[in-house]
Structures are given as structure tokens and as C-alpha cells.
């Protein structure tokens, strides 16, 4: 109830403020549905209540894909919002269209907001930056794939969470199987077992510096032995009842973990809030993603997932100033900590991370820290991110081929050859759209 009182008060304040001042109004288009959307709403209300000069209106535009398409279409019609949320896979499209956005770093410095890229935690720093390291999009809801496990199940089987895939294969999984569990499931094969497989093992994902140096001539490097060995292992695990795949849908793979059928589930650090709020009937915890010792002995950090906020161009100076002030507010430690607590997305600045630690958040919920710990692991040459055009379609191709591997329709070898070919065709086509 208190929440509603506060919200009502905020609205009242906002309304009276409108009457008193000529505010600069800006809009934010986002893809945060349900509870996440309510949290965005709360942040916006608080921002509006905290000052009298600017007013932001968040608008929910559907899924990530729908939001991006709506924003693009609006831009073509000259009706673009001030700020648009764009997910990881759409980054290349937006950043490639120079002139569609104002680099967030420029926006902030031009409007008198202090900006130092080193304030941001290392894992999120460069994902939405250009090849010179200038930040273009503001990392907003940043997550990382982590390993959740059923503590009761692992205890019953007498094992601990695996550090490496070798350990999983030889020790953890067989024990869990004997204890009556399906050992492993995951919810997003391109994200967890491709993109982050590359960064975890510090493997190059694309030519041209993972695509950051330009769309021209960028080719995907997905057809390599390490990842093929991984998918071969997956098919073997699946045959032996150690791994199960329930289709491309995220929820279809999460549900069996919640039901207690699957002992280890790879999901998003952003899933934490949701899992906490449910009465699961068992204790769960989380840790960093395993790696293959055969590939590397020094596992690295992972890429961020989730999405970032882009300031769209074509608005007047006052509105840009308002957008800059909103970004300033959004990245303040308090707001970041609030966002982190409510949703499970990682805090994006070192200061917010420190605040969360100081407040004892991770003493209360140790698993909440896993995402940011994993993002703060040592980086390598290939861990700052990737930039590939038509990446939404490339992910669709991956999903299709991986599904075929796991439903026995194709071989690992053929699937990766296919992905490589189709992805490179798409990349070449994308390069031409930039001409």
C-alpha cells in the first residue's frame, strides 16, 4: 500500500509541477514488460518528482524486436522518441546508422554532466562503444548468463556446483542422474552457448576486431573446434539423460528447473528476482558459468546481455539536455542500486556496486552478486563485445540450427557450416545497407 501512496504522491507532485512550470517533456521507448516495466515506471516517476524542469514519459513498446522496429519506423517518419532502448542483438543496426543517435558520451559532456568511462564496471564498459572506445549507448538493463542450481539436488547427489564442463561431465552430471534429476538445462543457446562461450574462453567471435572496426568485410568465426566440441558434448549429454532441451522458448526451459526436475539451469542474472519471488519448494543458489579446461585454463569475463538506452538525434537542445539529465539520474548509485535490487540486473557503475556491497545486499542474497562478479572477471582480447549487423537474424539462424542438432535433424558439423555461411551472407548484405 505504501508503494501506491508514494506513487500517488509522486503523480500529484508531477501534476502540480506541470501546472507551475513549463517543463521540457521527453519520451522513453522501452521493452520492459510486467514487473520490470513497473520498475522503469517508478524510476521515471521519481525522476519527475525530483526536479521541476524535465518530465519523462516511458512507453512500453512490446518485445525488444518490436521496440527496435517501432523506433526505426518512427525515425523514418520523424517521430522518434528521445530515448530508445535497444537490445544487444540490435546494437549494430543502431550504431551503424550514424546520425540516428547522439553518442551518449557526447550528450553527457555537452550538457555539463561529468563522464568517465572508467566509472562503469569493466564488463559493461565497451559493449555499446565504438572502436575508439567512445560510449554510444548507455548500458541500462545489463545481465549476464549465470548458472543457477538446486541446492537440495546437489546435496542429495553429493556434489558441488561444477567449475568446469569436464567436472560436470565426469562427476556432477552422473551423480545428479543417479539422484533422479536431469542435470542441466539452459534458456538461450545463442546467448549462453555461443556469444558468451566465446568470451568466457576468450575466443574471437568475428573478424575486424569482433566487428567493431566496421561492417565491411566482417565475418563470423563461429565455426571453430572448441564450440563444435561443446555442442557435440551437449548431444551426448542429451542422449545419456544428462541434459535436456525444451525448445527455443525461454520459459519452457526454465519451468523444469522450477518444477525441480532439472538440477542446474543456465539463465540470466536478471532471472534472480523472479526466482526469489516464487515458492519453489527447494533452495537455489547461483555461480559463474563453467568453462572447458581443454580450451582455456584462464576463463575470462562474459559479455553483457540485456539492453542499452540510445539518445535519438533530431531533437532540440532543451530536450537533449533533459535526456542527459535523465541519464545522470539513472546512473546515480542510488537509482542503480534500486534497479539492481528490484530486477536482478547488474548495477552498471562501480559506485553502485560498492553501495550494494556496503548495504549488505550480497550478505543477504549471495547469488545476486554472481552476475556482476562474472562481468568483473579479468578481460581478454575478445571479451569487450561483438558488433554484427542483421544479428537478430543471425541469432534466428543459430536457434534454428541448434534446434536441429538437438532434435537430431542435423549433425554438429553441418549445422555450424550452415550458420557460418548464412551469417556471413547476412553480414555481407548488411555491409551493403550501410553504403
Amino acid at each position: 500500500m505504501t508503494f501506491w501512496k508514494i506513487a500517488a504522491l509522486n503523480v500529484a507532485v508531477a501534476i502540480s509541477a506541470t501546472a507551475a512550470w513549463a517543463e521540457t517533456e521527453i519520451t522513453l521507448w522501452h521493452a520492459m514488460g510486467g514487473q520490470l516495466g513497473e520498475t522503469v515506471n517508478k524510476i521515471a516517476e521519481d525522476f519527475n518528482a525530483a526536479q521541476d524542469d524535465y518530465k519523462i514519459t516511458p512507453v512500453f513498446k512490446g518485445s525488444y524486436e518490436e521496440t527496435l522496429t517501432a523506433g526505426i519506423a518512427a525515425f523514418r517518419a520523424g517521430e522518434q522518441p528521445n530515448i530508445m532502448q535497444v537490445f544487444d542483438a540490435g546494437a549494430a543496426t543502431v550504431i551503424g546508422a550514424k546520425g540516428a543517435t547522439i553518442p551518449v558520451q557526447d550528450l553527457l559532456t555537452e550538457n555539463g554532466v561529468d563522464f568517465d568511462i572508467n566509472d562503469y564496471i569493466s564488463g559493461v564498459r565497451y559493449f555499446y562503444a565504438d572502436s575508439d572506445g567512445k560510449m554510444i549507448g548507455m548500458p541500462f538493463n545489463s545481465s549476464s548468463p549465470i548458472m543457477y542450481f538446486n541446492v537440495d539436488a546437489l546435496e542429495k547427489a553429493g556434489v558441488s556446483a561444477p567449475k568446469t564442463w569436464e567436472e560436470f561431465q565426469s562427476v556432477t552430471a552422473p551423480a545428479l542422474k543417479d539422484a533422479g534429476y536431469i542435470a542441466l538445462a539452459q534458456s538461450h543457446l545463442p546467448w549462453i552457448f555461443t556469444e558468451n562461450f566465446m568470451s568466457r574462453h576468450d575466443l574471437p567471435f568475428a573478424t575486424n576486431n569482433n566487428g567493431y572496426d566496421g561492417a565491411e568485410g566482417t565475418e563470423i568465426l563461429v565455426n571453430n573446434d572448441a564450440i563444435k566440441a561443446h555442442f557435440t558434448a551437449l548431444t551426448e549429454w542429451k542422449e545419456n539423460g544428462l541434459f535436456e532441451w525444451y525448445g527455443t522458448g525461454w520459459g519452457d526451459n526454465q519451468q523444469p528447473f522450477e518444477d525441480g526436475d532439472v538440477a542446474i539451469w543456465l539463465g540470466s542474472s536478471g532471472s534472480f528476482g523472479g526466482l526469489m519471488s516464487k515458492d519453489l519448494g527447494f533452495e537455489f543458489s547461483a555461480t559463474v558459468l563453467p568453462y572447458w579446461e581443454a580450451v582455456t585454463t584462464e576463463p575470462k569475463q562474459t559479455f553483457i546481455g540485456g539492453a542499452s538506452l540510445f539518445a535519438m538525434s533530431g531533437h532540440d537542445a532543451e530536450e537533449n539536455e533533459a535526456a542527459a539529465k535523465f541519464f545522470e539520474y539513472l546512473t546515480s548509485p542510488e537509482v542503480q542500486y534500486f534497479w539492481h535490487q528490484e530486477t536482478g540486473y547488474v548495477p552498471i557503475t562501480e559506485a553502485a556496486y560498492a553501495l550494494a556491497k556496503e548495504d549488505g545486499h550480497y550478505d543477504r542474497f549471495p547469488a545476486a552478486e554472481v552476475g556482476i562478479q562474472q562481468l568483473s572477471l579479468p578481460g581478454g582480447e575478445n571479451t569487450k563485445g561483438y558488433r554484427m549487423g542483421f544479428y537478430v537474424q543471425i541469432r534466428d539462424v543459430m536457434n534454428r540450427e541448434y534446434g536441429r542438432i538437438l532434435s537430431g535433424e542435423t549433425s554438429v558439423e553441418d549445422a555450424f557450416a550452415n550458420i557460418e555461411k548464412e551469417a556471413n551472407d547476412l553480414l555481407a548484405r548488411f555491409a551493403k545497407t550501410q553504403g
Partner: protein
Amino acid sequence: MADLTQSSTLQTSVSTPLRPRIKLRHVVDHAILIAGAFLMLFPVVLVLMTTSFEDADIVKHGLQLGFEGKMLENFEAAMFEASGFTKTITGTRMLMNSMILGLGFAIGKIVISMMAAYAIVYFRLRFATLAFWIIFTTLLLPLEVRILPSYEAIQSLGLANTYTGLIVPLIASATGTFFFRQFFRSIPEELVEAARIDGAGPVKFFIDIIIPLSRTMIAAIFIIMFVYGWNQYLWPTLITTDEGMFTLVRGIKQIVQVLSQTGAMIPEYGKALALSLIAMIPPVLIVIFFQSWFVKGLTESDK
């Protein structure tokens, strides 16, 4: 009843010993029809039953047989509980939007196509044939095929998230015009002659003669177009991104999205199923109650 006695006397007269077999045939006929009716009806009945259960039960066990006490609550939530990010979208709001789309589309289509068909059939116009073909060509391309540029057109006219943008592009096809043209041509020519001798102008003729004559046809077309408009999915999905503009059918997409990404809460299956039933009720009722018009319209307009 009269038919029954007649046909049975006919059959007995053909061969009396066959009587028991004829009865068996009737049993088989009815069995097949009952099975068919059951297949049509049962899925929806099962969904209706399921809306009376707790969400947690539905999540665990799926569709349910039997009745529990939650039905009213679920329907109430579906109708009145504000959901979505903006808290503007309720079942009633979506119902209203669907109504506007269904009615606006049906009425708009009838008015515009009647006018055009009247012009083509009853006037001596040099370019009447040309106009007819310009309109008729649109039968070639369903909206699904030209969806991307249509979206672009709506966007550049600034009509996204408006009722105009929702309704008008759907009217851009010739089905109605074609139908009314056929119908007008079946109206006896003497009527026009008589009207002209009486000195009635084209407007008076249209209002006094054509509209009353077309009444049944208008009703039939109205039902078909209302159902068609109400059930539109792809276009509303693209053109309405503001929740306040969602139609019921568009809302289903949102539901499926939320249900498939197990988020923070227990998915509200009861409410979602209730909403899907609400989305069916108005068009289904119209089709059932105006059955004979509807059948007439369907079988005659498509010919």
C-alpha cells in the same frame, strides 16, 4: 416433421426389409455429426471450465475438467483489472477497441464500396470500366503481402496508433465493391427506367430504391465484415503499440509473450483464458444469431 414422414414412406415403399439398416444408417449419421460438433465445441468448453481454477493449478496441470469457484473472479479480472505497463489497458478497453475496429471496418467498407459500386453500375461513365479494374486489381494482393510498405505509409501519414490507421488500410480491397456490383446488376433495369420517368435523380433513386432493396445483402455483408475486422491480427499488431489502442486479438499476443517468459509472478492463466473467451464471444454470438443472413452472405458474396 413433414419431410421425415415423406422420406420414410418413400424408403419403405422402395424396400421394406431394409428398415433396420436404414435406422442404423441414421444412427451412424448422427454419431458422426455429434462427434463433429463435439470436436468443435469441446476445446472451448474445456477452456471455459479451466477458467474456474486457480492459476497455480493451471500452471501445474494445464487444462482442467470440472468446475471450481474461480470463474467469476477470473472474468472480472480479465474485464476490469488494469494490466500492462501503462495501467490503461483493461478487458473493457480492449473490447471497446475491438468493437470500434469491427464496426468501423464493416460500416466503412459497406459505405465506401456501395458508393463505388453504385457509381460503376448506374452511371454512364467513360472510365467506369477502368475504375472497376483499378479497384478490382486489389483483390490480387492481400494485406499480408504488402504489409511492410502499408506500415510505412501509415507511419509517414502519422496515423500509427490511431483508429483511422487501424481501420482505413483494411478497407483498401475490392471484396465489398465487387459484391455490391454483382448485386446491383441483378436488380431489374426497369426500375431505373421507371425512376427516370418519375423524374427521380440519382441520389433519390439510391436512397429510395437501392438501399431498401439491398437491406438483406447489407446485413449479410456487415456480419462477415464485422467478424473479419474483429479478428484482424497482423495489422493491429504492427500498427498499435500503445497499450490503450490494443484490441482483444492483439492483446492475445501480449498474453502469449508474457506467459512464455516466466517472469516474476505466477502467470495469470485464468485471466488469460478468460480474455481469450471474451475475444470470441461477440463475433460468435453475431454469427449464431444472424445465421441465415451470414450463410447467405458468405455463400453468395464469394461467388
